[in-house]
Each structure stands twice: as C-alpha cells, then as structure tokens.
C-alpha cells in the first residue's frame, strides 16, 4: 500500500505520516513473504492431488459408456462398464440427505439468530451445533449403525447412509446460514416490522432472500463434503455393481464405495475404475459449485 512511499533512511525529517520505521517495514515485508509463502506451499499439494486425479482419471470418463452403464456382469479383469450405478447412488444419497438437512439446518439457524437470543436453549443449541460440527463421520456412521441396524434391526441401505450424512450436513448448513442471517442489517427487519409485517413473514421474505446467495453457497459446500464421505458408506451400505433405484432396500453403490470396492481388484481395469470414479466425483461436485454460483447470482436481491 502506502508503505513503499517512505524512505526509511531519512529519519531526520520531522514526523509526517509517510514515515515508516525500518522495523515496521521489515515486519511488513516478512509478513508479506510469509503469506505468499504459505500460499505457495499450500498450492503445491493441492495442484498435485488434482493433477494426479485428472491425469489418471480423465481418459476413463471420456468413454460414453462410463456415464450410462453400470458394472453389472463384468468380471474384475474385464474392461468396460460404467459408473452410472454409483453416480446415481451418490446423487440420490446426497439429495435425500439435503432434503432432510436443509430445512432442519435453516430452521435451527433462524431459531438461533431470530428467536433464541441469549436464552439457555439457544446457548445449548449453539454448543451442540459446534459439537456436531466436530463429530467425525465414522462416529455419525456408527451412531446410525447402532440405531438403524442393531436397535431397529433394519438392513444396510442407502437411506441409512443418507441419515448418517444428515448429521454431517446439518451443522455446516446451520453455521453458514447463521453467519449469513447475522449480517442481514437489522434496519431491513425493522423496516419490515414497521410496515406491520409479521415476524415470520419478515424472515421468510426479507431476511432469507437477502442472505440467500450465502446460504446456497453453504449448502453446496456442505453437499460437497457429504458426497465424498467414505466412512458412512463403508459401515452402512453394501456395494452393488448393478443399478439399484430403491433407496430403502438392497445394496446401492456410490462413487466412494465403488472406489473402496475396486481396491479389491488388482487389475488395470480396477485401477482405471478407481481413478475414473474419483474424477467423476470431483466433476460432479464442481458442477454443483458452478450451479450454486449461477443460482445465487440469479437469486441474489442485490449483486455485490
């Protein structure tokens, strides 16, 4: 910024606001270097991982069959087939999870920002959201396992996976939504109340639309997180190489589970399927992020 204007050697001049001492300059330079350094250090593994995925997976997903077929009836060694069954599973499990999580998450955030105030319940709710944020996915999976499978005696199913994912998605939605609702200016609310509009309508029609783009971005980030989760599918779902449209019964594949499963396949075909599934997942999630950007731009009441 303005720091470069100062000449540190000319200390004799009476203090004006362009004087910046050497130590301050050094500190500033050091900080700048560190920040740039951190960024450069971080970008290496990040780009590296992406490169690995793209380099190994890209050729696989170019095949049209990859997007349309399942692995049904293929031997481990045989090339071909596709990931349709797993893509379907990942999307449906994520969708069901979102259908459950989004309303709950947004309502909790609304409660915290608009209603809870400093009440005991609000405090414990915030606390519990924080705790839930830190709950590892494997614990969420074990919880659903103990409830769904050992207590109720139901089988492993895609729905069980979705329920475990809900535990992971809700806190992320609550947090982002809460943050977004908080920065909606109070003036907007007050103006609305002043017009005699009930509180709930104010929230639904003024507060949420104002925060909508941020909320959507949060939801997409949350979805991105849950769709790549491997631990819940490992504990709660069984892999099927064929298409299973039934959410409630039977084994259903998902992209992470497909990758875990193909680790049991020592052949070149297995190697290709693993990285193909990996890049497919990344592509899917990228699409969601892009969609989120598009939607939030279309929906945002005011553009920044």
């Amino acid at each position, binding site marked *: 910024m303005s720091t470069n204007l100062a000449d540190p050697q000319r200390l004799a001049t009476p203090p004006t606001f362009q004087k910046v001492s050497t130590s301050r300059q050094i500190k500033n330079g050091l900080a700048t270097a560190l920040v740039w350094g951190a960024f450069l250090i971080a970008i290496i593994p990040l780009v590296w991982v992406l490169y690995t995925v793209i380099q190994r997976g890209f050729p696989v997903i170019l095949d049209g069959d990859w997007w*349309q*077929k*399942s*692995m*049904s*009836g*293929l*031997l*481990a*060694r*045989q090339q*071909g*087939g596709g990931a*349709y*069954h797993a893509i*379907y599973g990942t*999307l*449906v499990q994520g969708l069901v999870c979102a259908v459950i999580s989004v309303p709950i998450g947004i309502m909790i955030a609304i409660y915290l920002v608009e209603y809870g105030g400093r009440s005991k319940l609000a405090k414990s709710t915030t606390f519990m959201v924080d705790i839930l944020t830190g709950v590892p996915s494997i614990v969420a999976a074990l919880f659903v396992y103990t409830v769904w499978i050992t207590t109720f005696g139901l*089988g*492993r199913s895609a729905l069980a996976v979705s329920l475990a994912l809900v535990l992971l998605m809700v806190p992320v939605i609550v947090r982002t939504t809460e943050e977004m609702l908080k920065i909606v200016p109070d003036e907007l609310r007050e103006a609305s109340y002043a017009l005699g509009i009930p509180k709930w309508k104010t929230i639904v029609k003024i507060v949420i639309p104002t925060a909508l783009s941020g909320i959507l971005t949060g939801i997409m980030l949350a979805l991105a997180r849950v769709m790549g989760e491997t631990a819940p599918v490992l504990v709660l779902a*069984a*892999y*099927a*190489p*064929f*298409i299973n449209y039934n959410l409630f019964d*039977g*084994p259903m594949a998902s992209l992470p589970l497909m990758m875990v499963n193909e*680790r*049991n*396949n*020592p*052949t070149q075909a297995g190697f290709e399927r693993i990285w193909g599934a990996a890049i497919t997942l990344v592509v899917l999630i990228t699409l969601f992020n892009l*969609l989120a950007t*598009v*939607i939030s731009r*279309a*929906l945002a009441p005011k553009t920044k």
Partner: protein
Amino acid sequence: MKIQRHGAVLGLVAASALLLSACGSDNNAPTGGTNNTTSNAASVPVECGGKTKLNAEGSSAQKNAVDAFVQAYQAACPGVDLAYNPSGSGAGVKNFNAGQVDFGGSDSALKEGAETTDSTKRCKENPAWNLPLVFGPVAVGYKVSGVDSLVLDAKTTAAIFSGAVKKWNDPAIKALNGSATLPDKDIAVIYRSDESGTTDNFQKYLKVAGGWTKGDGKQFKGGVGEGKEKSAGVAQAVGSIDGAITYVEWSFAQDNKLSVAKIDSGAGAVELTAETAGKAIDEAKIKGEGNNLVLDLDSIYGSKAAGAYPLLLATYEIVCSKGYDADTAKAVKAFLTVAATTGQQQLADAGYVPLPKAFQDKILTAVKAIA
C-alpha cells in the same frame, strides 16, 4: 427477476431429471469367455427356470468368482440375474439363516450349534448344506532382489511370520534353498491390517502344518511386521520394498509381479499353479455327512502329497437341502450347476482354482439332490 429465478430452478430440475432419467443401463454384454465351453460343460444340462432374480450374500473372498458364475449363468439361462452382496461371511450366514437371501457365501462351514439350528429352521426343518465351490490359493509373495526362486516350508514360514527368523540368510531358509544366494537382509513382514478371511486361513494353515502357536482368526497375530490395508495395499507394499514378504491372494501376487514362494510339505518344493492347487483339493477329505460337503481343512493344510499346493482358501455356498419353494429351488439348482461346471472355467483368470473333475462330481451330486 422472477422469470430469471424460475428459469434457474426449472433449468436445474430439467438438468437433474435428464441426468437421472432412465438412461443408465446394467447391460454389459459379456464378451468372450463363456463360449469356449469344454466337454464337462456339455455333459451337464442346465435346467433353467424358476425365480429370475436370486439373492445371495456373504464372503468377499469369493466375490470375483461369483461374478464369473453369474456371467456364465446369464449366458446359460438368458434373462436371469443374481445379486451377490460381498458383505462378509458372518453377514452371509446371518442373512441366510434369517431367510433374507437364497444362499449364503462363507469362508467357513456353518458352526455346530446356534448356526446349524437356525439354518435348519430356515430350511423348514431340513439341514443346510455347505458346498465348497470356490477355492482360492494364497500365495506367499516376496520381493528380494536376486532371489527369483524361493522354497519355504510351513515351519519356516511360521517362523518368519512370528519373527523368529529375521534375516533372509537365516540358516532355516538356507537349508531349504541350497543353491540360492540369500542376502544378509532384514525380512520385512507385511500383513493385512483389515480383518480378512485370508489372514484367518493363512494362520490356520500355519497352525496345522507349521506349529504356529500365535492363534488364528481374522486379525493377524504374528506379532511382527507391518500391516497394510486390503490385498491391494499389502501387495503394493511388498512390491515396493526389497526384502518384504507377505501372504496374499494369488491374483494380487500375479498382478503386482511378486515372486511366489514354493512350498515344501515334505515331498519336494511345489510351485503354485492351477494344477498343484487342484491336486490339493483332490486330496481333501470331506468331514460332512452325505451331501453336506464340509471340508476337513486339516487334510488340505496338512497334506504331504507330492505336487499338492496346500495353502488354499476354501469358501462355501450355504444352501438348503430342502425347504426352498419350487421356483427358488429350480433357480438355485440351475445357478449352482452352472457355477460348478462352465462357471469354473473362468476362475483361473480371476485368481482362483477350477474344481478338479472328481470334486466337481461330488458337488453336482449334491446340487442335484437339492429339492
């Protein structure tokens, strides 16, 4: 603005509907493999029919074999399917006994007691049979530069995997490999870190043949070495360090280009091939009664027959002898018939051992007797 919003939402719905509309297909027309049927396939006619969609669940060790069976089954009986859910032997037995699946796959025969009582109940008061349909050899894979051929016996193997033998040039190993030059290098033992039937069988083999005292089960008990996740991890690990040794399914040893140790059970070194493993199956004694073909594993592991490779993982299909409804019985019989005949031919490719003729006949007799 309003139109724009609706447009965005509509576009999304349309896009996702398009994505999920029924453009997916399970149809991966099998290519090759099933056409080159040999004589013993022709001799056994398959009576197709009954239920079109069978359900089975169990051991993941026979997953790839069942895939091959399903392919052959579909070639023999068009329009049928079988879903095999590789959720583990325990789950296979549990769900078979609960009547959730038509047959179970398991790394071990039903245990006397609760398991057999439950299965008898499930089969409407008829006994369930254990049919050993899939045999997978376990390779003792290693990588030591300059050592292409290695002979081990059960005792030395047990000593290596329990840490008693620590160097490749240990006298015990030298004694078995007279001519080979063994380096003065530490032996790096690699084992499965996840629970697996391979570990279980390997330890049982060592117990029977090599005086292993560390115990068996799905967790490795040797107390030495380093565990890697799944066969893929184990095989990859051995492939990347000089001096490493492990036990792993044959197909993984082959695909990772590991050297495979020959096993000397007292009648000379035996290389792992389809023939030597088949020989061991032929040597196997049945301890079950009649058509309940429970194997006496000790007779395989402890086999001293010349030219028999004793380190095998046997997995069973657990079926009802009687008590299926007519449709299911017909389909199960058709599937198992195919599995025991044409289905076996592709097994070598998938790292399993095809059943030898005599053993195949025993299985077919049992399958025929299912009612």
